[in-house]
């Protein structure tokens, strides 16, 4: 982990964020369908041990901030035929999020 130059909670409700477009091996809880896309922080859910590490029999500490990120469905699926205001809310760990 870096020296502490990055604050513990990088984001707050209302912030625009972009999901990293990376495809590592292992157990990942960031769905493929939103990688590379931008959304808005709906809330901070809390801090939890990193599931990518827990999956590998490690303790996943220090805990990682987890956010609910809200995406407009029409931004996620090019052929979305529902209403333009429909949303998709996904929980994403902080290390998968950047400022757009």
């Amino acid at each position, binding site marked *: 982990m870096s020296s502490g130059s990055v604050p513990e909670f990088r984001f707050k409700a209302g912030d625009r964020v972009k999901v990293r477009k990376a495809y590592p091996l292992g157990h990942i809880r960031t769905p493929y*369908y939103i990688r590379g896309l931008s959304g808005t922080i709906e809330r901070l859910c809390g801090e939890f041990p990193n599931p990518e590490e827990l999956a590998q029999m490690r303790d996943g500490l220090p805990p990682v901030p987890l956010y609910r990120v809200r995406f407009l469905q029409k931004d996620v699926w090019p052929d*979305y*035929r529902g209403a333009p205001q429909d949303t998709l809310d996904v929980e994403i760990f902080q290390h998968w999020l950047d400022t757009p």
Partner: protein
Amino acid sequence: MSEPGKYQPYSYFQLMEISLRELLVEKGVLTEESIRAEVQAMRGRTPERGAGVVARAWVDAEFKKRLLENATRACESLGLELPGLKLVVVENTAEVHNVIVCTLCSCYPRMLLGIPPDWYKSRNYRSRMVREPRTVLSEFGLELAEKILVRVHDSTADMRYLVLPKRPAGTEGWSEEKLASIVTRDCMIGVAVPLLH
């Protein structure tokens, strides 16, 4: 699945379950009693628990406010034991309809709804509910006007979601017990709405 009077040989996987269980007991990792007790405890967790929370939120505005702010704490204040559950309750209104899915596996608020149904865990539900929720909902018999915002919640991490359905008209003055009786499991997943019998 089994016909009465007909032998059903154990499948390979049933043999594996028996074998793993016996090995774990032999090695002192688990006991038969603890496994039996846990099966019993799980049987006790039925959607009635969730329905009770919904009914309380319908009659008690202060409880509903607390439920939407910190659902786990609010449910615990009703005396529910919810070890490990990190709950988020999402409210259906005249403008918004919520529905829950877990595309990555089958995350589900088991402490309040019990074991998820097969269809919730199916490839088809998990693939399509995020992408075409209105179509899947209409296949479930739920048609939503375009002016209603559909919010799909993909439980990808530690939180578990429960839909707080909209209280239907015509239920004024009903007791909590009667209100809970119209709140089905499917209403709390978001693929149905409560109907008056």
